[in-house]
């Protein structure tokens, strides 16, 4: 349906996105994962024809949309990261406005507005001014606006940033429902691993403008099949202990957070006795040593050496 071929975007002397390749098939939920500044928003701006790539192509049904974006624009809905709504208008007036610019009118517009308000759970607040809404309600309306003209492909740029868990769940369920009931194709960008794991069929992981991994959830997790992730928790972690970890040749990665350290080691290595000896030598007391089931977060750690939210 939609394909990105060697897509790059250069701002002044820096590449925000470099040689990006990805494809989206009809009816899929695709996750685009990466930390802040990874280039996700730039990628979807190019994909949705809002900015022109410096190099590469975006192909919709095998035709480039860079010079002629009209066919793609007809079938997409975009949920921007910002709350792109008129805050001085009511929820209903916002939907009516965006409906009108998509040439909906009369009874059809009214029916669509009612439907969307129902889907996003704002029917009771339809006549309230948007600026009186909570962050979660604004986010829901932000999504509702993009659904109004029933796009075949909906692009969501971090739609759950800064909202409460209840609204977040509501949004995730809404995305799932749209995909299942209306067969809407969804491109979902986020830096929340668990959202992408829950929603998406296939995942692309970006970092520093590059695509560093892609595939289904299982395929991506298999990147870690040769390693195991171990979480060490201890009181008063000191530099001596961390240096021991770094110096040990069997430990592939060491990532220190506040009171815990994550390490990655080859599956066949029994690291426990080594860790206990290191703790004794460094004079620290270990609280726990756990082997973790690999998550996408671990894959990201493995690929970049950083946590997603760093």
């Amino acid at each position, binding site marked *: 349906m939609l394909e990105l071929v060697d897509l790059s975007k250069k701002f002044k002397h820096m590449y925000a996105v470099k040689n990006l390749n990805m494809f989206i098939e009809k009816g899929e939920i695709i996750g685009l994962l990466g930390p802040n500044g990874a280039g996700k928003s730039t990628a979807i701006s190019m994909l949705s024809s809002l900015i022109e790539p410096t190099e590469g192509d975006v192909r919709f049904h095998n035709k480039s949309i860079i010079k002629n974006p009209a066919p793609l624009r007809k079938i997409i809905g*975009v949920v921007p990261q910002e709350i792109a709504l008129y805050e001085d208008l009511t929820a209903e007036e916002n939907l009516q406005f965006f409906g009108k610019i998509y040439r909906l009118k009369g009874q059809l517009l009214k029916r669509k507005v009612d439907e969307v308000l129902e889907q996003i759970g704002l029917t009771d607040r339809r006549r309230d001014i948007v600026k009186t809404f909570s962050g979660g309600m604004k986010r829901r309306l932000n999504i509702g606006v993009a659904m109004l003209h029933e796009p075949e492909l909906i692009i969501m740029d971090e739609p759950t940033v800064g909202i409460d868990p209840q609204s977040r769940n509501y949004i995730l369920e809404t995305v799932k429902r749209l995909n299942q009931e209306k067969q809407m194709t969804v491109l979902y960008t986020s830096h929340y691993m668990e959202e992408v794991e829950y929603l998406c069929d296939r995942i692309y992981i970006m970092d520093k403008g590059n695509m560093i991994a892609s595939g289904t959830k299982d395929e991506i997790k298999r990147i870690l099949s040769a390693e195991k992730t171990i979480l060490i928790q201890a009181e008063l972690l000191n530099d001596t202990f961390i240096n021991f970890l770094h110096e040990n040749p069997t430990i592939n990665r060491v990532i220190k957070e506040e009171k815990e350290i994550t390490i990655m080691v080859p599956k066949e290595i029994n690291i426990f006795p080594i860790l206990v000896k290191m703790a004794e030598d460094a004079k620290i007391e270990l609280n726990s040593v756990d082997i973790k089931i690999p998550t996408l977060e671990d894959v990201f750690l493995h690929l970049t050496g950083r946590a997603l939210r760093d």
Partner: protein
Amino acid sequence: MIGIFQAKIKMFIRSPWVFVMMTAMSIGFALIIGGTGAYTAITVPVYTTSEGIQNSIIGDILEDSDTYTFVWSSEAEVMEQLSSNKAEAGAALGEDNFQMIVGVETPSAKIIEQTIEEAYAKQAQYEHIVAASGATTVAGQKAILDELQASIAAPVFNIEVENFRGEDAFIYDNTFQTLFGFTLFFAIYTIAYNVLPILVEKKEGIWDRIILSPVKKWEMYVANLVYSFLVGYLQVGIIFSVFRFIIGVDFHGRFIETLLLMSVYVFAIVALSILLTAIVKTVAQFNAVLPIIAVSSAMIGGAYWPLEIVESKFLITLSKLNPITYGMEMLNGAVVYQYPLKELLFPISILLLMGVVFIGIGIHLMERRHI
């Protein structure tokens, strides 16, 4: 396009406070500083020791004065009014002479004195005419006087007096100076704050959403520009109408022309606002830059004081790049100088040119920067 326009109107109705404030400030400042242009005669209390004066030619002439209202009072009343500063000057009128009683030495006191002197001179002139007629009886003298006054009232021919002035002659009308000056000045704020949402909508992603819809980009710009133009023009219309129909300022019969001419200025300011919105990057920058632009333009363009009193060549040169200069020139030309349309074509053309250039550059910058 209609949808965008309707949404803007809805938001304007819901939150018209900038518009209301700027309109009220324009009216308030013009009213306080410029006055209403209504004429109020100065009251001059006078008394006489001779009873015949009030009914004499002197009394008639003083009572007919347009400039001053001479009020017949007692000596004590005259003194009381002067001592309590209720009157600038008074006079004690005698048969053949008068005495000025001045409370405060002002330019008016001299003119009052001159007015009374003229009344006495006129009476002396009448007395000479009567004496020259040779009438000896009281009835005869009265008949001569009546005939004289009838002739003055219905002259054989009229003399019209015209004043000539050169091209550089400067007429200053404080009422119109402040009315036009503050209207042009405050209109900048109203219009600019109605263009500003383009920047906000671009930052917040609303603009992108509309770009992805079937609405054409030119429709987006036209809807925004037409809306800003209409709001600015509505403000000007309200201000001028308040002065014309409520306060009673006569636009020297050119009220409609003034309103029509203002459309050109409003267009130029919409364009200037687009350029400003394209240059700044944030709303905070816009809020900082707008007052600097508006106030300096008003100062350089002659909105606060007439440009004719500015001597600096540098400032005069700067004023040539300023829409307010041409707005003032156009309005003063139409109302104060009563120029025909063809003499106003120069400022009109410059404002139109500025409008086209500013819009062109502004939209180009916005598109290039993708803000």
